[in-house]
């Protein structure tokens, strides 16, 4: 018959139907096995139905669990998207802060008028360059420049012209100094120049070029009726960093040299 082969519920159903039909036939009425087969048949059919119901319920639970996990996956995805947005916005704010703090650091080290480094910048670089000179055993030359009779420029031509003169001097530095030299505004009309890897002799030659170019500057004063350009001179004092002595001592010697230059009649360079 082949009905037992598959063991599928459908096949079993068909077999039960066939047995049911045989039991119903009057020809088998007197068979002593018939009541037993009838009982077995009924029992089996009930169990088969129960099994089907169980499978249906179980499938239902599976479906619910799947729906739940789909909903959970959706929720997690939404949360992840939210967190990504939060991180993205937060990163932008952080970048803004970082840029602001960099800009503030730059500003805190810069002289706004000339665009050169300010005294704070110079103090930092002085320490760094002194340490480098010590390490590399190379000379470090420093020069202090003071504009001669700058007060007179301000008084006679006004502060605008005085400011313009200082910017003109900053341009001279840009022209004369090497990439690795360092210059900044040390005070009102005073500039400090660091010449790494430079002996006093070489430093004097550089200082002399600066002095000469400043003496050649012509600052236009358009408010003057005479239209005579303003002329400037500057004096410089130089010294070389001495190991095992504080940097301040080098600066003090350069200051003394500057004073000598002033006493010698200005518009000249002196070494200390």
């Amino acid at each position, binding site marked *: 018959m082949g009905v037992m082969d598959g063991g599928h519920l459908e096949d079993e159903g068909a077999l039960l139907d066939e047995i049911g039909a045989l039991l119903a036939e009057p020809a088998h009425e007197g068979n002593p096995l018939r009541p037993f087969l009838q009982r077995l048949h009924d029992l089996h059919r009930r169990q088969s139905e129960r099994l089907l119901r169980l499978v249906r319920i179980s499938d239902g639970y599976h479906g619910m669990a799947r729906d739940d996990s789909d909903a959970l996956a959706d929720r997690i995805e939404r949360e992840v998207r*939210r967190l990504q*947005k*939060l991180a993205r*916005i*937060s990163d932008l*704010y952080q970048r*803004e802060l970082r840029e602001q703090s960099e800009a503030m650091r730059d500003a805190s080290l810069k002289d706004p008028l000339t665009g050169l480094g300010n005294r704070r910048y110079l103090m930092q670089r002085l320490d760094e360059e002194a340490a480098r000179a010590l390490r590399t055993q190379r000379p470090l030359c420093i020069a202090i420049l003071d504009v001669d009779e700058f007060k007179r420029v301000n008084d006679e031509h006004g502060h605008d012209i005085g400011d313009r003169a200082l910017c003109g001097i900053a341009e001279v530095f840009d022209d004369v100094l090497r990439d690795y030299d360092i210059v900044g505004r040390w005070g009102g009309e005073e500039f400090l120049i660091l010449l790494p890897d430079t002996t006093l002799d070489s430093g004097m030659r550089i200082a002399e070029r600066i002095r000469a170019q400043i003496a050649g500057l012509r600052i236009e004063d358009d408010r003057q009726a005479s239209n005579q350009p303003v002329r400037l001179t500057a004096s410089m004092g130089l010294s070389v960093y001495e190991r095992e002595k504080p940097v301040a001592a080098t600066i003090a010697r350069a200051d003394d040299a500057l004073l000598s230059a002033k006493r010698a009649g200005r518009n000249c360079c002196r070494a200390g």
Partner: protein
Amino acid sequence: MIRRNQNSIMNKHFNIPATRSTPEIIADWDAGLVSMAGDSYPENSFEFFTSTIEWIKTYLAEAQRPLHLELRLIYLNTSSVKAMMDIFDMLEEAHARGRAVSVDWLYDPQNERVEMLAEEFREDCSFRFDITAEA
């Protein structure tokens, strides 16, 4: 109804003055307006924003009038960003229920970064969300 009355008295109008690390927040129940201005990096952002979030929640639940947010926020730390996202989510939900809600984010034209940030916030919002440079 009792809760409503209590809340109405408590929440009708509140004004948190700005500090160095927290924005000024003004909530006006009658005008249906919440304005926030300044930097926000409080010690405890969740606590700081609780009253504002509660006020908005109550307003959206009880007042049937439109709600408008006027923002002049500049710097926000991460938990403040989170609080603002929560607020915009509440507005989005209310909008989906048919409530009239809107946001005006005003920024100093010198600070374009704020505009970019406001646009990030706006991304998932379907209610009216204007970002405008303020002279």
